[in-house]
């Protein structure tokens, strides 16, 4: 529904990670710290020992909104947007959407799992209820 991200050196691993069905983010081994969005160094220790690492893809809905406004011609509403807090670290979050479920059925605290939808050369990480 939205525009596709422009891939660059920093973000390419994230936006193509879903090709094998896995969510990945940068992880610093020295700090045991996950960081997102990706950057050139660990924002805790400033070391460059950060590398993309696989996450469980599971998390909890921290915030939810149903967008009901057709901001542009052709935009199908309503749809549900979420901020998901990922299990691996408090405060490690993704703004995302849950296009496969009834918007009215999503609530804060729901347990969710990532799934991917390919758009051009990008794999969008969406979420769905954890079965």
């Amino acid at each position: 529904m939205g525009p596709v991200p422009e891939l660059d050196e920093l973000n390419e691993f994230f936006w193509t990670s879903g090709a094998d069905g896995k969510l990945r983010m940068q992880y610093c081994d020295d700090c045991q710290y996950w960081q997102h969005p990706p950057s050139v160094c660990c924002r805790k220790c400033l070391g460059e020992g950060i590398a993309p690492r696989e996450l469980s893809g599971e998390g909890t809905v921290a915030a939810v909104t149903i967008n009901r406004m057709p901001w542009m011609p052709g935009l199908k509403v309503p749809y549900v947007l979420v901020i998901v807090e990922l299990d691996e670290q408090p405060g490690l979050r993704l703004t995302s959407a849950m296009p496969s479920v009834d918007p009215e059925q999503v609530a804060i605290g729901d347990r969710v799992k990532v799934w991917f939808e390919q758009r051009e050369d990008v794999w969008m990480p969406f979420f769905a209820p954890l079965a």
Partner: protein
Amino acid sequence: MSNPYSEKQCVISGVGQSEIGRRLPRSGLQLTVDAVKKALDDAGLKREDIDGVSSWPGQMQNSAPGFSPVSITDLREAMDLKLSWYNAGIESTQMSAIINACMAVASGQARHVICFRTMTEASSMAKGTRSSVQGTGSQRISGPFQWQLPFGAFSASSWAALIASRYMHEFGASREQLAQIALNARRNAQLNERAVYRDPLSMEDYLSARMISDPLCLFDCDVPIDGSTVLIISHKDCAPDLKATPIHIESVAGPLYGRDSWDQQDDLTRFCAEDAGKMLWSRTDFSPKDVDFAELYDGFSFLTLLWLEGLGFCGRGEAAAFVEGGQRIARDGELPLATHGGQLSAGRTHGLGYFHEAVKQLRGEAGSHQLAGDRKLAVVSNGGGNLAGAALLRKD
């Protein structure tokens, strides 16, 4: 030793505002010149006295339509200003126009600085483009917006709504409580002939309004306008020569300690308002209990709740209860808010409009919507999410 803070050397010597409306026949530059002329007249200054200009965000590449239609260059050329110092840039808070002007005046780079903010979002919307909605083109997205737009989080309405949902969940706040921000603004706008929306607004109207992005409805979102607001910041030594009552800038702050993002803050519902509040109060001997009224940012009604907490007018998680019933924030309450109607009802002047209103109230020149009694100290705040700035204004 003199006080080290630059703002203590400065006063707001004049304010001016163009016509504010939904689609005006005048261009952004015309509206800006209108506002400058009014501010000069208000201060008793001449165009030749102006030697500095400060703005936010100034000229923007790929500018969102109507969001920043006038650059410093445009204004300088139009009015043939001779500038010793000028500055604008988007990598700062909205408040940076004021902070930078104070630093320029205190350090002798300039003596009388025009600060301006001009919007033509209403005319742009009429042409079918919304500046508050990003990424409507077909091109790929890079930079910070890539983390929101691809999922359909196009508008700040949705970004704020996500945080509002979290706040309501954590603290049990209700839509009826949030409504008080919008209802109070509208009651004040009814007294202000310059406000954009002046029809009565009831709780029933609010609760039955169209939802934009849950839990925010139409009346929780401010109204795009065409218009320009100007402040003139001058050295306090000029005060005796001014036509208007000078308003002192007791304290001003625009920090960014948290993440530069809406969704990666350590605490989703604190935003940067709290840091701005701490810094604001650290630069003055006044405290929240001394404040006579507050012009808190209401680009979304919900942001006002975070500002009430961030500035210390109530405790963490207490803002919804603070505004419940609306009496406390009404014009005869203990902390009047949005005395001109806020951005919700008076129009999205995007920051400087609150200063204009605060200065008029402190001087006792707000006319039909003047607060009762002598008001000496006012707080102004700007921004939401990763943008936060606050100022404390004082009359002698």
